[in-house]
């Protein structure tokens, strides 16, 4: 009997001990919808792709470019980029990685059937792919194109032999989910979990955990509870309401980093006459749109106490800002602090603009998209009312909100933007004039338009020299932000929580990946 018990105890131990040292159970808040790295450009999918596949250029925690499948890259001519590929890299099924695979990947990317959001934009600038030798590539573009390396940080490389004619379904059923990355996929239960095993042949740093159970727990409270109960050891998207409690918990450690997602207000620049949700104090439409007056926009920006929003609504998990990027990111504008809260100055500016008694406005926004989005617009509504702009607030589910915002139905609304760390990215998409031919301003929902900015952006996007381009982009951003094209509010902090025995290298791009998690004490 005694022996039996001892044997049982031993068996349990044998099971438990390696489990804690070797296995990692993590839970993410957003569902991964596909294992096909070219099917849907969606952050949770990209995070998983970042575990299984590699890009020519990978990114570090601060979203800086680091060598991936390419060891080095340089512009050999203004319109030709040369990539030297890493030798001796093998896919999970043993196939060797060569330049042919990159060429094949570029062909597949724009041709994934039924893709709701493809990666085609990242390979469209490539006019020609020249395979110099098995591990050297030359990519030529139409005219100088400095952003090619940045684009290459988004394209996951597949194998020509393995992935010829492979469908998205075959990726989802694991059989085709074969990359060069630090983890291989063992099983996939859509909407529930993905199981990974370490790829011991990985060319980069060896991940700490041999087996990873990657679960999707979309309910915020349930995710936190699963961490506290010890069912999972690591969670992402920690709700701000739980921050204080988790910080005080002895069993839990946190990791955080200022992200790349800016929350901002977009204003109607399109209508010169009355804008739908602005009226005078008696509720009558105002014949000319006051939001086109820079003094009004500046007043609205000054009238927001960003620090109060960060402290009280965001529980500190954000940084007040007056621009797109946090310090330390390429093309951050150094001398442009977050606008100071100044109700008196705002009132003065409004009076100067011809609105000594203010006006009425409705502020719109989503209520299920960004942390505390509905509460942020409420806070702003109160602040604006204090400077004389009587504000009503309407928050809606993202599904209805975003369609209406995209149709220019609102006068002022809150929305967020996750940037690539390159000033041209937010400028081209949010600020540049809406222009279908160039593909600019696609997310410029307020239809701001400034020919001088367009000209400078165009110039910057042809400048191959990084230092010069950065200066040009800083100037262009300053121009847009001094004209208050949008009203930036804060940049979100990305927060992860884990059991004490773990540590994590936080990522600005919000990706939750197993290779960034390690035991807290090195054994």
């Amino acid at each position, binding site marked *: 009997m005694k022996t039996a018990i001892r044997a049982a105890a031993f068996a349990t131990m044998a099971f438990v001990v390696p489990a804690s040292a070797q296995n990692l159970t993590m*839970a993410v808040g957003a*569902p991964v*919808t*596909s294992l*096909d790295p070219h*099917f*849907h*450009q*969606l952050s949770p999918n990209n995070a998983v792709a970042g575990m299984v596949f590699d890009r020519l250029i990978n990114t570090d925690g601060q979203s800086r470019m680091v060598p991936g499948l390419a060891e080095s890259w340089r512009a050999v001519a203004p319109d030709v980029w040369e990539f030297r590929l890493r030798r001796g890299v093998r896919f999970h099924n043993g196939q060797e990685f060569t330049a042919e695979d990159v060429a094949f990947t570029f062909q597949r990317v724009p041709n994934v*059937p*039924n*893709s*709701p*959001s*493809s990666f*085609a*934009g990242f390979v*469209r600038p490539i006019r020609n792919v020249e395979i110099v030798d098995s591990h050297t590539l030359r990519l030529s573009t139409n005219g100088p194109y400095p952003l090619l390396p940045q684009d290459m940080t988004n394209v996951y490389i597949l194998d020509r032999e393995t992935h010829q004619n492979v469908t*998205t*379904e075959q990726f*989802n059923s694991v059989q085709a989910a074969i990359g060069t990355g630090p983890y291989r996929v063992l099983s996939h*239960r*859509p*909407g*529930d*979990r993905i199981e990974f095993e370490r790829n011991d042949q990985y060319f980069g740093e060896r991940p700490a955990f041999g087996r990873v159970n990657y*679960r*999707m*727990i*979309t*309910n915020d*409270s*349930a*995710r936190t*509870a*699963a961490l*506290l*109960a*010890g*069912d999972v050891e690591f969670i992402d998207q920690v709700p701000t309401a739980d921050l204080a409690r988790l910080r005080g918990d002895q069993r839990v450690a946190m990791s955080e980093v200022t992200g790349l997602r800016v929350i901002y207000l977009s204003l109607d620049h399109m209508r010169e006459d009355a804008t739908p949700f602005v009226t005078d104090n008696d509720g009558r439409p105002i014949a000319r749109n006051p939001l086109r007056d820079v003094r009004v926009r500046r007043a609205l920006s000054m009238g927001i106490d960003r620090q109060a929003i960060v402290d009280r609504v965001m529980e500190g998990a954000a940084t007040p800002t007056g621009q797109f990027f946090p310090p330390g990111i390429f093309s951050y504008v150094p001398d442009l602090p977050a606008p100071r809260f100044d109700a008196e100055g705002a009132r003065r500016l409004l009076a100067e603009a011809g609105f000594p008694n203010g006006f009425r406005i409705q502020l719109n926004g989503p209520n*299920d998209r960004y942390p505390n989005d509905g509460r942020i617009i409420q806070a702003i509504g109160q602040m604006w009312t204090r400077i004389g702009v009587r504000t009503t607030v309407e928050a809606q589910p*993202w*599904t*209805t909100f*975003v*369609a*209406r915002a*995209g149709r220019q139905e609102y006068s002022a609304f809150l929305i967020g*933007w*996750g940037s*690539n760390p390159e000033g041209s*990215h937010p400028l081209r*998409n949010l600020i540049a004039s809406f222009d*279908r031919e160039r*593909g*600019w301003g*696609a*997310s410029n929902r307020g239809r701001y338009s400034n020919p001088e900015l367009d000209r400078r952006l165009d110039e910057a996007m042809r400048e191959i020299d990084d230092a010069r381009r950065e200066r040009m982009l800083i100037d262009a951003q300053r121009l847009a932000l001094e004209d208050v094209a949008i009203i930036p509010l804060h940049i979100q902090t990305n927060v992860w929580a884990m059991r004490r025995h773990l540590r994590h290298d936080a990522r600005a791009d919000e990706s939750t990946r197993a290779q960034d998690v390690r035991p807290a004490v090195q054994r």
Partner: protein
Amino acid sequence: MTVYLLRRILQSFMVLVAMSIIVFVGVYAVGDPVEILISPDADQLERERAIRALGLDLPLWEQYLVFVQRALQGDLGRSFVFNEPALQIILQRMPATLELAFGSMFLSILIGLPLGLYAGLKPDSVASKTIMAGSILGFSLPTFWVGLMLIMVFAVQLGWLPSTGRGETATLFGLQWSFLTANGLAHILMPAFNLALFKISLVIRLTRAGVRETMLMDYVKFARAKGLSQNRVIFVHVFKNILIPVVTVVGLELGSTIAFSVVTESVFAWPGMGKLIIDSINVLDRPVIVAYLMIIVLMFIVINLVVDILYSVLDPRVRLEAKA
């Protein structure tokens, strides 16, 4: 019987058509799937490509005709998000929801019937009053809150049960079921109980009311007068008669449990259909929403039919032809 069935099937078909139109127009009215699915930094060309790829460039009526044409061949469309047939995605998630629904129904009968019977037989005892008061809680507490409380108490504080997820599964009939493994059972217990809470209260109340009413009936008195034992009177004569309303209600509840266990499934991260539908609504994945609701309508039709047939078995006075 045949006429009755035919008529029911025809009616069901009309309901299905109406449902598909409502959902189509509804999703169209709510928003634009491409706005939600597209990466924010996609340019105009890419947006136009996505709209074409998802078939959203056609006018709505044409999109609907395409859908009907394919549906008649058994194809309910491909999910925008998963790029797999909507029907297949839903059926994949069905076992998880079914075992949760049946688990909770099982619990509600296992707990509800005896308690209700007791409360009906001894209406004035303290225990009965406690049971009845407790059943009010079961009705009124929101599942969302109860679910989180269960997790906080049994998973976080006591550590007896796993907090979320489905646990290990075993294969039966080619499908994955978690009630076949100990680990799976531990995982299903809390969500099933959470889902059952409302139904337990319902069954208690129905049973109690039925028992109290039936005990006064002449045939019960007669059975007693014949000298039958108390147990035989209760478990044969009374029990059989109170089962009719219980079966009706539990049957209908089963339908809504399968269809709308959304809250419980998302609190417990249970990978079933309820979680699928709420995720799909959030991204306006129209093919999945349409297919899901059509399946649900179909299921309700079948359940109602089965309940009607069960009636006639339990109560010989009910004749299906007469009703039709």
